[in-house]
Each structure stands twice: as structure tokens, then as C-alpha cells.
């Protein structure tokens, strides 16, 4: 220590004097090397205290992308790790194949919350911990999220499904009736997003099955729905996944689709394609997305914090404009925030307080919640969809 102190106090040029012995130089070099060796790992490995916590999420594509989570990650020094799924069945399978507690946050479509709860994958939630008072009345006690008096999921966004169409071929008025799909000018130009639930739901509405729900139909209504669907076959140009749906509408290969909505056309329009979506006079289907806290999660407080963030005005502005696909806000403060941040988008998605808005459709009873079949099994519907594709 004394030597080191001496060396430290000595002017640098002295160490380079010709009289400095080789041993001294080697000693100095050794000290520098040792110091470097000790300091390198300290530089390469970030201090433990600053390491970001990981929050695991399972969600539809887009929810874990930077446009949705970067602000929250910075605020809480957290890294959100998203596992994406394609469809509720896929989500349930992924969760069932993972050890309990793998996912801290589970984003689900409304109709799958009950299945998540029954399987024991999600925690009960305290409504007082979230912005429930800010919800529009229609969502204040959303049936799909409550089992008895217990809340299991907190809604983030919603959207409507009806008819999406090429505005250069079909007028808004024409598209406002599901029967346009059978029009001769659409022969081979009707597309399907390849999932039976929204398609059959919309076609069930076309058949007049709006009470109690297009998914709650008896055997004769089910037979009629199959007949209706099969009669559409000559018009069908293809069955597509998300990418294919996007491409076929954009390149004009498909003129109309039922069972999709602004979540697709909102993105295609941004790319300059002449497409739009409407809710036909027979009614439309509603999708919702909500967050639950994963059962056994060790980061429940952080997960709850994220839910509070994404349902806050700041989070809702991001959610409404999500890059992957847009969605409407069920929160009044979300509407206020988007009207301030991007009035055009608020107007486009009909989230304005003055004049008719998207909540009016719900109030008028034109929109029906997308759910799994009530009187038939999911397998029956799925089997029929395979038959239809092969017809």
C-alpha cells in the first residue's frame, strides 16, 4: 500500500525516467492489468440494482410492441416479454402447456375469460384497484368478466365486426346489408377471415337471429344458418389469415368480407387502400380485449400497475392507435384524451361526445357480443366450417 501511495504521489514522468528499473515497470504494468481485469466485468455486467424486471405477457400480436409498452417500461424499469397467440383456443393451449405463474398478464377476448377462470389460470381482481368508475355504463359491469360477484378481467378495448369492403366497388349503403355478399358483382370476390366464430355470427345475424344472440340459436336456426353459409360458397374468393386478409383487401383481390371490421381496414386504409367497414342494418358483432392477472404470478403488483396504466388516459391513447390494429376505448377519459391527442382518429373511430358515436350502436341494440355457441358445441361449428371450406 505504501509503495502504491508513493507511486501515486510521484510525478508520472518519474516512472519513465531511464533510471526506473525493469522490475518497477513490470510491477506497474501488473497492477494496471490486474485493475483492468477486475474492472472489466464491472463494466460489462450492469449493476444488479439497475436490472430491469421482466413481466411476462401473453397476448394478441401488437400488445407487447414498443408503441404500447415503451413508456410503461421506462417508468417502472421493467421489460415486458410478450408471447403472442392467434386465437383464444391457441391462448388456452399455450397457458395449459406452461407451468403455473409463467404469465403475469393475460390478454384475452371476452368470451374466453370464463374458460380461463374455470381452468384456474387467472386471479380474482379487486375492482376498486382499477379505473372502473371511468367506464361507459355499457362496460361498467361487463358480464363476460364477472363470475358472480368476482371480477376476473379488466377491459382495455373493443371493436365491432360487420362488413368490410372496397369503397370503389361497393357503396356504404350497399355494404349496410349482409345480402350484398350474394350480389353478382362480388362473384369470387368475397373473402373470409379464416375463423368460424365471427363469420357465422354475422351470417346468423343476416338470418335474423338477433335475439337473444346470433350465437344462441336452436337446431332449426342452426340448419338454416348452414344453408345460408353454403349458399355463399360460389361467391367466395378465399379464406385468409391476418396477413392474407390484409393483402387481399389491399391489392383489390377481395371486394368484401364479413366478420371483420376496423381492426383490419383501419390498418389497410393507413396504407392508402380504398376500404372501409360498416355495421349492416341486421347488426354487428363485438369483440373485446381485457387483461387478467395470471394465477401464481410472482409480480402481481407490477401486473396490476400495467393494467392501471393501459386503462389510464395515456395508455388508452396508445391502445386506440395501436400499430398492429386499432381498437376503441371503453373509458370516458380515454375518449377525452384521444380527442385532445388525435381528434381525427377520435372522429374516425366515432369516439366523440357530440353527435352519434360508437357507444350509440350498443345502446340501440345493434351490436352483439361475440361468444362461443350456446346450443351447439364449438366442435359442431368448427366441423361445419371445415365442411364449408371444402364444399
Amino acid at each position, binding site marked *: 500500500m505504501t509503495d502504491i501511495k508513493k507511486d501515486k504521489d510521484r510525478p508520472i514522468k518519474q516512472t519513465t525516467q531511464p533510471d526506473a528499473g525493469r522490475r518497477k515497470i513490470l510491477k506497474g504494468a501488473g497492477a494496471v492489468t490486474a485493475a483492468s481485469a477486475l474492472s472489466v466485468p464491472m463494466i460489462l455486467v450492469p449493476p444488479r440494482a439497475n436490472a430491469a424486471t421482466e413481466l411476462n405477457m401473453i397476448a394478441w400480436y401488437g400488445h407487447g410492441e414498443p408503441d404500447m409498452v415503451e413508456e410503461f417500461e421506462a417508468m417502472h424499469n421493467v421489460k415486458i416479454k410478450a408471447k403472442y397467440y*392467434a*386465437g383464444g*383456443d*391457441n391462448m*388456452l*393451449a399455450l397457458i*395449459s*402447456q406452461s407451468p403455473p405463474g409463467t404469465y403475469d398478464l393475460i390478454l384475452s377476448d371476452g368470451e374466453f375469460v370464463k*374458460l380461463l377462470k*374455470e*381452468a384456474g389460470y387467472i386471479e380474482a381482481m379487486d375492482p376498486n384497484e382499477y379505473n372502473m368508475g371511468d367506464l361507459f355504463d355499457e362496460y361498467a359491469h361487463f358480464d363476460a368478466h364477472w363470475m358472480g360477484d368476482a371480477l376476473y378481467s379488466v377491459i382495455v378495448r373493443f371493436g365491432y365486426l360487420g362488413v368490410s369492403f372496397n369503397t370503389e366497388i361497393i357503396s356504404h349503403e350497399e355494404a349496410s346489408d349482409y345480402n350484398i355478399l350474394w350480389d353478382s358483382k362480388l362473384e*369470387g370476390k368475397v*373473402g373470409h377471415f*379464416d*375463423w*368460424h366464430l365471427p363469420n357465422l355470427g354475422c351470417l346468423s345475424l343476416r338470418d335474423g337471429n338477433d335475439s337473444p344472440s346470433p350465437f344462441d340459436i336452436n337446431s332449426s336456426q342452426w340448419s338454416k344458418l348452414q344453408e345460408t353459409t353454403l349458399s355463399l360458397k360460389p361467391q*367466395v*374468393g*378465399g*379464406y*385468409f*389469415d391476418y396477413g*392474407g386478409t390484409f*393483402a*387481399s383487401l389491399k*391489392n*383489390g*383481390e377481395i371486394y368484401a368480407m364479413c366478420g371483420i371490421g376496423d381492426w383490419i381496414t383501419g390498418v389497410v386504409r393507413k396504407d392508402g387502400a380504398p376500404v372501409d367497414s360498416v355495421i349492416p342494418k341486421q347488426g354487428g358483432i363485438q369483440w373485446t380485449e381485457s387483461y387478467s392477472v395470471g394465477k401464481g404470478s410472482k409480480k402481481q403488483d407490477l401486473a396490476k400497475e400495467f393494467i392501471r396504466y393501459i386503462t389510464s388516459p395515456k395508455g388508452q391513447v396508445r391502445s386506440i392507435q395501436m400499430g398492429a390494429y386499432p381498437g376503441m376505448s371503453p373509458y370516458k377519459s380515454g375518449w377525452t384524451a384521444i380527442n385532445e391527442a388525435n381528434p381525427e382518429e377520435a372522429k374516425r373511430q366515432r369516439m366523440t361526445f357530440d353527435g352519434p358515436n360508437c357507444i350509440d350502436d350498443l345502446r340501440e341494440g345493434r351490436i352483439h357480443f361475440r361468444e362461443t355457441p350456446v346450443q351447439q358445441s*364449438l*366442435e359442431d361449428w*368448427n*366441423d361445419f*366450417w*371445415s*365442411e364449408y*371450406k*371444402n*364444399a
Partner: protein
Amino acid sequence: MARTQNSPSDPVTKQRRQVTLYGLTWSMPIVIWQLIFFVFPLIFLFLISFWLVKNYRMVPGFDTINWVKMFSKGYFWDAYWRTLGYAGVATVVTSILAFPCAFALAFKVSPKVRRWALFFLIVPFFTSYLVRAYSWQIFLNDNGIFNTLFALIGLGPFQLLNNFFGTLVGYLTLCLPLVVVLQLTSLANVDRTLIEAAHNLGCGRLRTVFQVIIPLAKIGIILGAVFTFILSFGDFVSPYYLGGSKPPTLSILIIDTTKSGQQWPRAAVVAIVMILTLLTIMFASVAAAYRKRA
């Protein structure tokens, strides 16, 4: 007599045994590879076809319900025969289109041109097949490049996408370069003196091709056809992205089956039927390729 029966102590037998051990040693990696990545997964696939799905989770068991269900569905057999037909057409079309190209490269061009041609036949494999299939949409859609060109001469628009034509274009994209290479390899090894002999004996050009060259190159031609059949039969990308899944093939049926209800056991039934079909066709074709002339 005892010596002709090759007793174990016979040096020749001993040498043969050594050769066999030597050969076995060298062939072990492929045997192990096939066991781990083909035989065991195949056994597992067969086993899960008897499992059940409860609450979106596979439950081990032994129930023939998945086989009964799938075999009783009309759409399964429709998809089966359709897939078989699609792959058959793709095999014939690809083999016919590839042959003139392979023939020209084998007999009509200089070695330098042949090398460059081989290079360009291999280059497409540098890019993902999915990307290549997707890029065809730009050419084939109603407002695409082909229909724009047709419109210039007052034709069209033609439906080139979301039908069997689109699917076939995808199959050709996948298989044609490979088949040309396989056919070329066989054609390049055809003994030129036999061709000259045929000409000297008065055999016409076309007859020489069909009666001398094709029989001599049949291994490469049949192998090319087998590869096309296998790749097309199991392909998902072309029928989905260029054929619009309209109507679906077996590979799409597998996706549909797993997507809704997570019915992996039923998908396993479809997969096993596909594998058995391909094995049958492959063994028959290889036998035909190596069969000696009577």
C-alpha cells in the same frame, strides 16, 4: 465343400464381417439421426392420435375416436383426394417443364454456361420459400403485373390468384429448380456413345430422346418427380397464400384442426395418413426407378 460354405474362420468371411462392421460404424450417425428425428417422433405421433383433448389439454389414453371421427368426415376424404390430385398434377407439370431445360443444359450448352445455369438454379433457395410465394401475389393479383400487361393488349383481367393456378405457380416455385438440377445430374451422366450408336443405327432425334436418353436418365427423372410429389403433397404455403385455401388441402386441414379446439390428436390422424401415402408412393417410385429392364 466346407470351404465353399465360408466357415467363420474363413479369411474371406472374416474380411466381409470387418467390412460390415466398418460400414455400420460409418452409417451409425444417419441411423441415430433417423431414429431420433424420424422414427421416435413418428411413434409419438401415432400414439397421440389415440389421446383425447380435455379443456384444451391433451390427455394420454387409448381411444380410437379421433380415427373414427376423421375417417367419417366427408371433408377429410375430399381434402385427401384433392391433395393427391394437386400433387399429381404438380408432379407431371413440373417434370414436363423441367425436362427441356435440363436436356438443353446437359447436351446443348457449354460447360461454362451449365455451371452458371446451375448457380442460378440454386440461388432461389437462398430466399425463404414463404417470401417467394408472397411475392407472386404482386404478379398474380387482379391489379398485378401480369394482368396489367394483359390489359395493354386488351386481355383480361384473369383470375390468377386464389385458385388452383395460383397454387400450381407456388408448387413450381418450390420444385422446378430442384427438379431441373436432379434431371440434369442424370442426363449429364448418360453415355454419349449410346446416343451416337442410336443415331448411327438410324434412330431419329425424338425417338432417341424417348427410347435412349429418358430410359438411361430415368433415375433422376423419377427422383425429381418423387421430390415434387412429396413437397407439393405436404405444402401449406402455396395452397394457403396463393390458392386462398380454396378449397383446402390436407396440410391446411391440419392447421384448421389444431387451430380450433386444439385437436392435435385428430391432426395426428391426418398427418399419419399423409405419411403413409407418401411412403407408399416413394417406395413404389424408387422401385420403378431402379428396376432393371426385362
